[in-house]
């Protein structure tokens, strides 16, 4: 009880304003100064690092999706005359071993990297949420069976599993998103299940059941909204993980075939030419990938502050 000295809830009516006592039902959103979302926004923006992360992420998205519209390069044809050129006026970041422009390559590589990250984050989170919520809410034997399955798949080292699957299927971007999601949803499911179990015994859920709410109503009205916070945080971190996993798969040469590319594959090329001194083929891609993963992780930390603050305030 170290909080004995902390002040009361700050938002109660202050005693000096009895004359303003309104007698009508507040008629607009303005009357609700501390909605959950507002509170979340305030907490998030207080975390300066997370804000920077958000800006970096937006810049990287612009770079990858808007960049090619501004900076035109031919990313399909190989051009052996131009291979391995150092940075110059015509090729701002030099060229690849196939003679393609490196900067342009980074742009389209960023596109697939971001697409895979977001795709996996969304897919895995959605599936994990549904799976975990069902297991947690059902309880009993259903829960045991569902979660043992998750335990089992979680103990297969994920990269081995992904490489195995990638070796079986024909790899394209969509397939890769599916494959990565297949390993990524597991930890989300475990998390959501745990949260659901604890929510299920919370008094407000008991109260809801107490006036006859059906399971469907309870899940829709209480469980899901209260899960949202943790799930969003987890989903954000999933995006970072997926980008790293995608890079690893691409590094192992199991990514989509050229002329498609991604940052992992570009780094891989750079590593192969490391001893030839073609630094421009390695470091820009390396910096970009670290930047995006860092940005997403930092955003995730910021969001988790938001969720924790909400839990504290309850």
């Amino acid at each position, binding site marked *: 009880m170290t909080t004995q000295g902390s002040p009361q809830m700050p938002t109660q009516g202050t005693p000096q304003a009895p004359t303003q006592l309104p007698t009508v039902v507040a008629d607009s959103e303005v009357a609700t100064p501390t909605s959950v979302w507002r509170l979340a926004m305030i907490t998030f923006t207080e975390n300066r690092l997370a804000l920077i992360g958000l800006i970096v992420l937006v810049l990287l998205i612009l770079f990858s999706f808007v960049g090619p519209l501004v900076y035109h390069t031919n990313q399909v044809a190989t051009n052996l005359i131009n291979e391995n050129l150092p940075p110059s006026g015509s090729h701002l970041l030099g060229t690849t071993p196939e003679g393609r422009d490196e900067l342009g390559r980074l742009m389209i590589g960023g596109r697939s990297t971001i697409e895979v990250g977001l795709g996996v984050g969304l897919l895995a989170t959605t599936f994990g949420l549904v799976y975990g919520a069902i297991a947690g809410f059902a309880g009993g034997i259903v829960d045991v069976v569902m979660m043992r399955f998750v335990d089992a*798949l*979680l103990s297969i*080292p994920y990269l081995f599993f992904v490489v195995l699957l990638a070796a079986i299927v024909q790899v394209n971007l969509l397939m890769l998103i599916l494959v990565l999601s297949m390993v990524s949803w597991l930890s989300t499911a475990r998390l959501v299940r745990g949260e659901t179990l604890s929510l299920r015994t919370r008094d407000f859920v008991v109260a809801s059941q107490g006036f006859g709410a059906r399971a469907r109503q309870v899940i829709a009205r209480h469980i899901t909204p209260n899960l949202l916070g943790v799930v969003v945080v987890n989903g954000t971190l999933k995006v970072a993980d997926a980008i790293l996993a995608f890079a690893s798969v691409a590094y192992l040469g199991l990514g989509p075939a050229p002329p498609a590319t991604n940052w992992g594959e570009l*780094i891989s090329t750079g590593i192969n030419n490391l001893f030839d001194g073609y630094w421009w083929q390695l470091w820009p891609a390396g910096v970009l990938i670290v930047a995006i993963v860092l940005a997403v992780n930092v955003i995730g930390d910021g969001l988790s502050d938001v969720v924790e603050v909400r839990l504290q305030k309850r």
Partner: protein
Amino acid sequence: MIGYVVRRLGQAVVVMVIVSIVVFGILHLLPGGLVRAQLGPRATALAVHDLTVQEGLNKPLVVQYGIWAWHALQGNLGFSYKLNQSVGSLLGEYLPRDLLLVGVSMLFAIAIAIPLGIWQGYRRNRVDDHVLSAVMLIFYSMPSFLLGVLLIVVFNLWTGLLPSTATNFGGSVGNDVQVLALPVLALCLGNVSYFSRYMRSATVDNLLSDHVRTAVAKGAAPRRLLARHVLRNSLSSTMTLIGLTLPYVLSGSLIIEALFNFPGMGLLFWNAAQARDFPVLLGVVLVVTVATVVGNLLADLGYAALDPRVRLK
């Protein structure tokens, strides 16, 4: 405690059974089946038929699973036609090297991360904590191969101190230490960033807990506080985490082995993936999974040993 161990063992067995079913299922979902995958698309119908019968692939799936599981239990994981060697003997050759690489790097990671995390937790929100946190976050956000390349650039390209590949592993001890240095370091740094983050937050939680406040009220100095009241409590929860990260550590070793050409199971697996050598792929997956499950088990037992609330149940 005995009840806990027995229950935990039972769980591990269940997990292994499920994994084996999944792996077996994947084996049989292969386009064209296992036989085609092994013999290649140009094999004759007769050869396919012979191998199908020989491998018992015409029997019902359940029976096939029984046979396969029975063989796997005896260490018979099939035969690699591509390498012309049984998977079991391949694993016997590669696995020990992996245990060395992963084991040593894990030991280093734990030895570095625990004091680091405690220090950061103790100095939380001071400058040194912020700097260390930032560095760890960067390591944490870096693909392991990029981290490896950074090390190669620093220790090989710039200074020439250490070899950049581990191809010629298996010479003298002195040679092996040199050769292993960078792969171990690369693997270790990634794990340090992960463990220390966790250890830091466990330390912070503990430092803010009521029982540490009691210890302060008794007059305990920081050193005593950390050694007697924080270390053990934070360690027990970090223990489980270390067990849970095993799959990630092993995944990291796959990348590091590919980068440094270290002849371990990861490299074997990578080559098998590119050659679509399925018996090897499945054998390796099974073995690394067993390693994970055993690791988790050990971690949980360690947790129980450290925490009397579990031990004395």
